[in-house]
């Protein structure tokens, strides 16, 4: 095995879908920590997450999945914590316990109160049980509710970024959700001045921009 091949073999692998905001969080983290990775697309619309190979990696059928040598880790929060511990360069959690807790809380508002209520599975359900026209309004309603909560939570703590003047975990979870809200679900960002300002700050960072859906290898060409 030559050195180039060995280097390839040792690279991190991420199983990702271009539009998956959960995958986007980790793409940002990898970029910020300067970690190279193989991008392995899993087409959720075609049901590739139900293939026997992928089910072995993650039986719940979600992306992202990170493979690091022998380690296989699923779930963006678990992957984030793993990366933070194993690759401490460019720390993505502050040292102060209160601000750390704030980051976890903001991340969880996205993970538990927003994203599960606008993911593919639930949109499909709404399309089937209510109507196709109800998909966007349903997602918009829940995203906006979550964004209101985030505005309140962060208003006394935000600096240049969500929890101060440095990029931390909260920003990684916020950026993909705001992007999805704007691009796909007609969210009226005028109602969310802090999140709007944060979004502009994220738009200036190449590590965030290169992780966005449209830039991924499996994004449909324009």
């Amino acid at each position: 095995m030559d050195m180039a091949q060995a280097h390839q073999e040792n690279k991190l692998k991420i199983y990702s879908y271009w539009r998956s905001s959960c995958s986007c969080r980790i793409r940002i983290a990898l970029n910020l920590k300067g970690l190279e990775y193989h991008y392995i697309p899993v087409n959720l619309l075609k049901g590739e997450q139900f293939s026997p190979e992928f089910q072995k990696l993650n039986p719940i059928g979600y992306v992202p999945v990170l493979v690091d040598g022998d380690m296989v880790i699923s779930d963006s929060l678990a992957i984030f914590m793993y990366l933070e511990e194993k690759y401490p360069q460019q720390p993505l959690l502050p040292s102060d316990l209160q601000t750390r807790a704030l980051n976890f809380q903001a991340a969880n508002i996205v993970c538990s109160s927003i994203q599960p209520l606008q993911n593919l599975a639930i949109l499909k359900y709404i399309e089937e049980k209510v109507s196709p026209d109800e998909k966007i309004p349903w997602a918009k309603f829940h995203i906006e509710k979550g964004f209101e909560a985030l505005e309140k939570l962060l208003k006394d703590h935000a600096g240049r970024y969500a929890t101060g003047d440095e990029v931390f975990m909260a920003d990684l979870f916020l950026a993909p959700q705001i992007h999805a809200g704007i691009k796909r679900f007609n969210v009226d960002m005028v109602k969310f001045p802090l999140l709007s300002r944060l979004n502009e700050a994220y738009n200036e960072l190449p590590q965030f921009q290169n992780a966005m859906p449209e830039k991924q290898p499996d994004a449909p060409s324009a």
Partner: protein
Amino acid sequence: MTHRRAFYFKFQQHRTQLKLELETRNPMAAKDGGDVSSKIALYSYWQSSCSWRVRFALKLKGIPYEYKAVNLGKGEQFTPEFEKLNPLHKVPVLVDGDVVVSDSYAILLYLEEKYPQRALLPADPQRKALNLQVASIVSSSIQPLHMLSILKLLEEKVGPQERLLFAQTNIEKGFLALEKLLKDFVGKYATGEEVYMADVFLAPQIAAAIERFKIDMSKFPTLSRIYESLNALPEFLATSPENQPDALH
């Protein structure tokens, strides 16, 4: 009696028996959170399964706390005092000196860092990640989909029969995934021979699945075994809804 009802009945019998034992041992043990400490206060509602996670963890770590009941039915989460603690009007909220933390997952990660005794995350990176993943599956893929607010919304948009059906479908989907995920790691508890974060999230979730949503746990043998172990823990019992100071009987 159908198999499912027998299963459910067995859990209830066991719970009642253990409660009697605990009360006999120490009449106050089941009622409060241990010595009242000026340090930690937990704002909680007896029936909130998110609050149960934190109560369970505090008990496992042997951290005394003051129980502050927030009556969600009476709208106490909207008082100006509570709003100052959590502008999102949700329980649980933990107050530890100057530090105020909301959201059960955030609280648990905070406790794990500040009070490392009786660790709730294993040192081994693969098992640590597995515990965080299980916690996420419960807190993101299962619990939010059977919250009262969502079920009410679906009842309006789809119909009254949809409430239970939606909740059950999503709980079973999540439980099926957990069965697959845990089968190669399970021991006495979810990820081995010790109680960890996965168990802290699973126990209240399985309790809710059985008691509120009538899930047939015989379909989930791994989770059933885990729950049987957890249901035998005094820490789990002492922190269960019916043993909280604000429980209504």
